[in-house]
């Protein structure tokens, strides 16, 4: 027991060192930018995990919340508001939107949330595309002001990389705290058996609503950071396809697993770029890869390590 915990610690420490030294090795700005997007996606997927991975509610609105956070931030800073106001504005907008969506649908015990969030994603996309004077329409918004606190802010890809690592670490810690709180237990109880959860005194409607809102806040904050670190946004980044992709990241990484969220987001953000040399064929390979993971490791990539460990222990 003790040695395995020590091993985990050592593995985590090595991983942290590797992650922190990547920018020194890969001086290529494009790779760092890709890693930055992977981390932003990881935060969004961690958010999706609250409602979908832990509480069992299917949510296809996560890309739209991501977009709402990004557009709110871009529009506010371009209008001259100080950057420090944007995380608050982004959170206010996504909380309002998630309440409007969640309150009427989460009382019902079927797939209403899934349906409603698909519609919501489409509405958000249409507004972004058609409200051109404000949102820039299909061509998006450029030259978005960067992160700035009292005149200080990260400059260049590498400094953003470290800022995003720090934010991702906080996002993970908050998720871990929530998982081990009464709310986290209520989420998993609701997913495992809604009726038994209610019979134990869990308010399942409140639990589902909170999971949905917390997830939206993760997406809204990631959107805020996306706009002010990538500094260019367009509707494509927050479309229905993106919503499906986020769900795929969660499934491939491992539903309900915090490590899985990060692995899934990293794999599905980086892989398409790595396979780009295949041209048209990359989509085929990518699709096959996703299917192979789902079939061979239903618990996702995060479960492979523990499966192997169990096999090895069994063989001994």
């Amino acid at each position, binding site marked *: 027991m003790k040695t395995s915990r020590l091993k985990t610690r050592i593995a985590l420490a090595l991983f942290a060192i590797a992650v922190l030294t990547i920018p020194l090795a890969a001086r290529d700005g494009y790779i760092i930018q890709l890693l930055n997007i992977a981390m932003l996606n990881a935060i969004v997927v961690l958010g999706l995990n609250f409602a979908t991975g832990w509480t069992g509610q299917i949510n296809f609105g996560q890309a739209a919340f991501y977009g709402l956070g990004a557009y709110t931030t871009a529009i506010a800073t371009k209008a001259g508001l100080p950057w420090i106001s944007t995380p608050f504005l982004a959170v206010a907008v996504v909380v309002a939107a998630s309440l409007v969506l969640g309150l009427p649908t989460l009382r019902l015990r079927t797939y209403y949330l899934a349906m409603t969030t698909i519609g919501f994603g489409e509405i958000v996309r249409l507004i972004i595309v058609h409200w051109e004077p404000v949102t820039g329409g299909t061509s998006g918004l450029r030259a978005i002001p960067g992160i700035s606190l009292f005149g200080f802010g990260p400059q260049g890809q590498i400094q953003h990389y470290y800022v995003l690592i720090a934010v991702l670490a906080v996002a993970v810690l908050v998720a871990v705290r929530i998982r081990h709180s009464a709310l986290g237990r209520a989420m*998993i109880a609701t997913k495992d058996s809604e009726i038994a959860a209610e019979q134990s*005194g869990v308010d399942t409607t409140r639990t589902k609503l909170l999971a949905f809102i917390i997830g939206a806040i993760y997406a809204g904050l990631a959107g805020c950071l996306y706009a002010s670190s990538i500094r260019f946004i367009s509707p494509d980044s927050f479309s229905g396809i993106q919503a499906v992709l986020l769900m795929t990241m969660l499934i491939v990484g491992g539903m*309900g697993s915090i490590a899985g969220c990060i692995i899934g987001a990293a794999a599905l953000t980086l892989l398409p770029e790595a396979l780009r040399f295949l041209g048209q064929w990359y989509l085929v390979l990518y699709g096959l890869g996703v299917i192979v993971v789902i079939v061979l490791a239903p618990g996702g990539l995060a479960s492979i390590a523990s499966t192997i460990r169990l096999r090895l222990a069994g063989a001994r």
Partner: protein
Amino acid sequence: MLKVENLRVSYGHIEVLKGISFDVDPGEIVALIGGNGAGKTTTLSTISGLLRPTSGKITWKGETINSAAVENIVSAGVAHCPEGRRIFPGLTVRENLITGTASRSYRKSEIEADLALVLDLFPRLKERFTQGGWSLSGGEQQMLAIGRALMSRPSLLMLDEPSLGLAPIVIEQVFDKILELNKRTGLSVLLVEQNSAMALDISARAFVMETGTITLSGPSAALADDPRIREAYLGG
């Protein structure tokens, strides 16, 4: 303490409880027996607030709870241990038990004390304390479900077919625990069972249900000797 009067419940247009009445006194074990589809589970679900009656009255300690919210009924002291066990496989044994406290805010020390009581009653759960709920055997799951219900500090425990799907020797253990619990703490128990012999054995009174009505009632010992019961439920 619990009083059910003329309770009627329907699913859509189909009435499945056709005006049943019964009661449970403090410290008493009362059995509700009857065949599959008689309406036993529906009765418990209505008492715990998951279903709403079309007419009739449920009183708990003198207050009508017909339209109270599920979590308020739990926090008022009525715990429901559902049919088919329904523990939370994704939570550890410890977390499953603590989830039973969700209806009220307890202090940490109170939770630890209650955990100790439950583990004292079910030592098997202590061995499995940090394991996932999915890894438990059927009997252990039933004990966990009962333990979880106890964590809400009930004065009435409603058990829906605790013997379902368990081996005879395990059923015996579970019923021993229920009896021990009742003797030790004075907890009232409303026991729903198809296993009529066991239920009549440990209960003081019993009600017999058939397609939504109560057809017989009385002291369990007398019912166990009743030829109608012997023929229909005790195998002659």
